[in-house]
């Protein structure tokens, strides 16, 4: 029994090694291969647009806190509408990644209004990808300047005692 288990364990390791090589090989053939070192989607976008005339910036909780409530700053919630309804940053508008095409026309005029100094986008937390996806779509629509609050709802709701009441 012991030797059979050892044989199965060796088989597992072999299968895992081949899978790793195959996974890296498939990734190398992709048009946009994933780097081996993880960087959050927001971090990747910030790095990719760093040299642009209007780069997408990453902002902290404190910076976001200072921007919330300013009439010339728009806060966008990129999470699915259900999560937005459960709670969101003060005065945030809902623009989910999944329904961007449907919802963007509803907020377009506000985002393009004159005097808008910036648009802050957030999703659930530091590793979510929805804020970066929405930022990309907004950049393609020539809307900006854009900033991503990386800490997202997870950080905001843990640091803001009244966060659950912003419904």
């Amino acid at each position, binding site marked *: 029994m012991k030797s059979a288990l050892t044989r199965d364990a060796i088989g597992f390791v072999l299968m895992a090694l081949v*899978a790793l090589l195959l*996974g890296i090989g498939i990734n190398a053939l992709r048009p946009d291969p*994933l*780097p081996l070192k993880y960087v959050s989607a927001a971090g990747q976008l910030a790095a990719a647009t760093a040299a642009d005339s209007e780069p997408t910036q990453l902002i902290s909780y404190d910076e976001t806190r200072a921007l919330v409530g300013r009439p010339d700053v728009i806060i966008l919630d990129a999470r699915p509408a259900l999560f937005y309804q459960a709670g969101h940053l003060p005065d945030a508008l809902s623009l989910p990644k999944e329904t961007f095409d449907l919802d963007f026309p509803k907020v377009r005029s506000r985002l393009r209004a004159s005097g808008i100094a910036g648009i802050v986008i957030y999703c659930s937390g530091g590793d979510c990808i929805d804020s970066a996806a929405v930022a990309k779509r907004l950049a393609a629509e020539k809307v900006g300047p854009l900033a991503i609050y990386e800490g997202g709802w997870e950080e905001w709701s843990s640091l803001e005692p009244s966060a659950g009441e912003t419904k």
Partner: protein
Amino acid sequence: MNRRVWLLIAQLILAATFILAGALKLRDPQSFAASVATFRVLPKVWSNVVALWLPPLEIFCGTFLFIKPWQRTAAFTAVILNAVFLALLVQGLIRGLDLECGCFGKWDPAANHPSLGIFRDILLLAAATFSYQAFVRRSRQLRSAPKV
């Protein structure tokens, strides 16, 4: 129903689950890497490597459940994978993490419901353990059968 039919059902469920899960994750490795990072078990920098490695392993596991010399190894792999998935979900639930299961990409009904994912993993772990035991029993019987 006899044991052979139960084994076939368990193999079919496991194979379909692993191949589907692997194929969906293979299509969108970036989303899966983000899901891996939400578990906060490995250092985040490793999330992409896991996201590239796991989908082919799941597809191998599901496919090899029906390829004779590899059936037992595939069932053993299914046990290990399901046990690890279950442990990851449970630790996330205990730590109160905002997990994204990522098991079936964005089509996962348990994506934001770890308890549903835990229930599913318990069933799959039971099916994998049953299959592995059946394959071990079968290989023992083959070894002890009189040689002609």
